[in-house]
């Protein structure tokens, strides 16, 4: 016990905690179940851990990881750039820009990503040539579609254009979260609208935009497994499935792909937490508060509901 003579609280309370046998029982049950699960994983020969180990470092698998990462980040970049444009259009005074943005979001969110990917894969059948020119007027440059839009670009565009619709709502919710007084103060200082957006509104909106965008990136990592719809056949899921089918050992190869997805997700989560800390500066969250209340996350659902393009139904779930 501490020396009571130096205790600044002379009448410090030394009470016994409430007995909580239920906690111990629950913990024991969970530990036993977890041990059973691990035991089942390790001792069941059908998991073929030898194959898992061999193919974790297989060249085709590693290349698949590379393609999956490229698709994830490439489509997120396309998505973010388009989303910022769409969100700014949605805030504009110009009704044409507002409606186009609304229509885009409505369309890309209203059809399955799988359908969109198949469509992008068929684009060269629909339009054998692509040309730049004036609608119904002269054309200046013409391309062979299947040369310009390869399976990779079709996959990237398909994922990016779809993601933009979701990110646009997140960006819009972020821009809307910034106090109107901020814009006014900046305007009163003589800043131009573009400067206000770039220096005042967007940096503050990032605090709201970054967490769900991180979640979207993690979600995108896994959505890339749908690119076989294009068909694009080099990504991690396709590569591991192909090997699994060839070996007649699908299960160990599923574990291989799960391992890689988990590893990348974990790295992304670390990156996300750094970004959140950076954009949370000035809000007191730069000082670590262990166990303190966490900021509520603005999820995809919240953003969609805020958008007004979905029905106002609290139980409505909208997924890609």
């Amino acid at each position, binding site marked *: 016990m501490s020396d009571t003579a130096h205790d600044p609280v002379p009448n410090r309370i030394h009470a016994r905690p409430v007995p909580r046998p239920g906690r111990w029982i629950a913990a024991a049950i969970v530990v036993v179940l977890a041990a059973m699960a691990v035991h089942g994983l390790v001792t069941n020969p059908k998991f073929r851990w030898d194959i898992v180990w061999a193919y974790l470092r297989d060249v085709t698998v590693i290349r698949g990881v590379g393609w999956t990462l490229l698709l994830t980040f490439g489509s997120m970049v396309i998505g973010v750039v388009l989303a910022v444009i769409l969100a700014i259009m949605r805030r504009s005074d110009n009704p044409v820009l507002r409606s186009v943005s609304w229509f885009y979001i409505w369309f890309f969110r209203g059809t399955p990503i799988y359908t969109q990917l198949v469509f992008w894969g068929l684009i060269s059948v629909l339009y054998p040539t692509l040309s730049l020119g004036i609608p119904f007027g002269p054309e200046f440059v013409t391309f062979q579609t299947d040369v310009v839009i390869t399976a990779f670009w079709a996959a990237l565009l398909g994922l990016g254009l779809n993601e933009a619709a979701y990110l646009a709502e997140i960006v819009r919710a972020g821009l809307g979260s910034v106090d109107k*007084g901020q814009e*006014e103060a*900046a305007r*009163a*200082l*003589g800043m131009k609208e573009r400067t206000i957006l770039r*220096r005042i509104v967007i940096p503050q909106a990032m605090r709201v935009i970054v967490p769900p965008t991180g979640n979207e990136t993690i979600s995108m990592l896994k959505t890339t497994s749908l690119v076989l719809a294009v068909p694009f056949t080099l990504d991690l899921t396709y590569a591991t499935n192909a090997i699994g089918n060839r070996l007649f050992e699908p299960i160990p190869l599923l574990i291989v792909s799960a391992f890689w997805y988990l590893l990348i997700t974990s790295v992304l989560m670390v990156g996300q937490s750094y970004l959140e800390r950076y954009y949370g500066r*000035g809000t007191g969250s730069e000082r670590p508060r262990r166990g303190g209340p966490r900021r509520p996350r603005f999820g995809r659902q919240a953003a969609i509901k805020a958008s007004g393009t979905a029905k106002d139904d609290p139980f409505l779930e909208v997924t890609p």
Partner: protein
Amino acid sequence: MTTPMVEVRGAHKMFGDLHVLRGVDLTVAPGEVCVVLGPSGSGKSTLLRCLNELEVLTGGSVRIDGELLGYREDAHGTLHRLHPTAIAQQRSRIGMVFQRFHLFPHMTALENVMEAQVQVLKRSKAAARAKAVELLDRVGLSDRMHHYPAQLSGGQQQRVAIARALAMDPEIMLFDEPTSALDPELVGEVLAVMKDLAAGGMTMVVVTHEIGFAREVADHVVFMDEGVVVEEGAPSAVIDAPAEERTRDFLSHVL
């Protein structure tokens, strides 16, 4: 006679069907401190916001140092709306301090004071920093320069906001109830900075309920009610010997 710093003529402002300003005239000479009094909802903030184009007048005109705000008048007397860039340039010469401070929360006090100097006046970072340091020192915050707004008290935030406006070397400063959001013990430090500014010859238009400040610092007091100027003159007249019943009624509630 010298050109007035502020000259408002027949100002009308409608918000939809709501007629908020109903023909306001106001003249403020250079170096003068004008205090605007009036009950809540009488249009004081709206008038102030029209003085730097945060609101656009429905009728009438505002001239700042002789220059028509928001429009160019051609030889036939037709008004042409100015380009937003030109309006932004006009605003940069008019400082404004808000009731709720509106500091930029993602920037430190120093960065708040530097931002518009760099973005609007295109000063170098070094020059902007030097000016910001000098102004923060002047408002008594040299030891708080690297604090974020959330780490400052309301009185400190408002003093940073004043420094931020002064950094643009404004010709005139507008204050909209600068102490109304403050705890009573913090009001004095902000008023002290404002008195110091007035003593330095700054032209100021101040909306406030601080009658003591008005009596001590104002050259000119304006009492507004229901979108019109009811009474104006020296503080000794308007505050201590009001001629109008509405003024007396209002003062009896705030004094």
